[in-house]
């Protein structure tokens, strides 16, 4: 093997190692980014459906927002095989489903929207839930 060939192989091996390292970091960062996006969406959803003076219930927007959230969770959970990651996303998905089910029920009863007081408390718990999910990612990496 010539000196140039040896050097070429070493470069190839280093590239592969760097690529694997990059994949690992990329995977973790991608999951953390997904959690951040879901968190922003879910907290924004609570804000959108919190009572405010003059705010009117818009059922078509509500259905559209549910569809957007469901699509985000479907995409986030696609191909996830790590059991703890899957559990974390399923818990967050159930939180979202619970929130829109609650709102739907209240809207039918003529009491649409979260009250300001309940929404403030709810947002803290949702943020905590996402922080725990992110912590789980960091612990695993």
């Amino acid at each position, binding site marked *: 093997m010539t000196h140039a060939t040896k050097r070429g192989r070493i470069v190839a091996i280093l590239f592969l190692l760097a690529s694997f390292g990059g994949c690992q970091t990329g995977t973790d960062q991608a999951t953390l980014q997904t959690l951040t996006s879901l968190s922003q969406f879910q907290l924004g959803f609570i804000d959108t459906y919190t009572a405010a003076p003059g705010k009117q219930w818009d059922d078509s927007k509500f259905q559209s927002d549910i569809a957007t959230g469901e699509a985000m969770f479907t995409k986030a959970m696609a191909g996830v095989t790590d059991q703890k990651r899957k559990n974390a996303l399923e*818990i967050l998905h159930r939180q979202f489903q*619970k929130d829109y089910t*609650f709102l739907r029920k209240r809207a039918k009863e003529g009491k649409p929207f979260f*009250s300001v*007081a309940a929404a403030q*408390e709810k947002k803290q*718990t949702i943020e905590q*839930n996402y922080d725990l999910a992110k912590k*789980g990612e960091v612990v695993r990496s």
Partner: protein
Amino acid sequence: MSQLDNALNQIESDSVQDAKNEFQQLLSEAKGSSDAFVKDNAGKVENWVVMLSNNTIDKEEFDDLMADQKLAAEQFVNTQAIGAQAHGQHLTLQLLDLTATKIVPALLAVKPD
């Protein structure tokens, strides 16, 4: 006297005295926990009981917040190593369950509308 004491003092029925005592013991233990999640859970439960008792939130909202917290507790367990799960999980769920099944029904039974 704390706002929680004021709320709990509305419950005079002898049949729930044991539950009240257990609730306050669990709350005290959880607030003294070295685990931030367990401690935070106790603070939230206390706050929500007070909010319910003074009509800041209604019963459905209270139940919804408690259900949120149960999901957060599931997430908490999901992040823990198996050996570390047991006590924090037990204390958290015990406090949530006792609050929902004994304390709040007794409080609502005596609370003026």
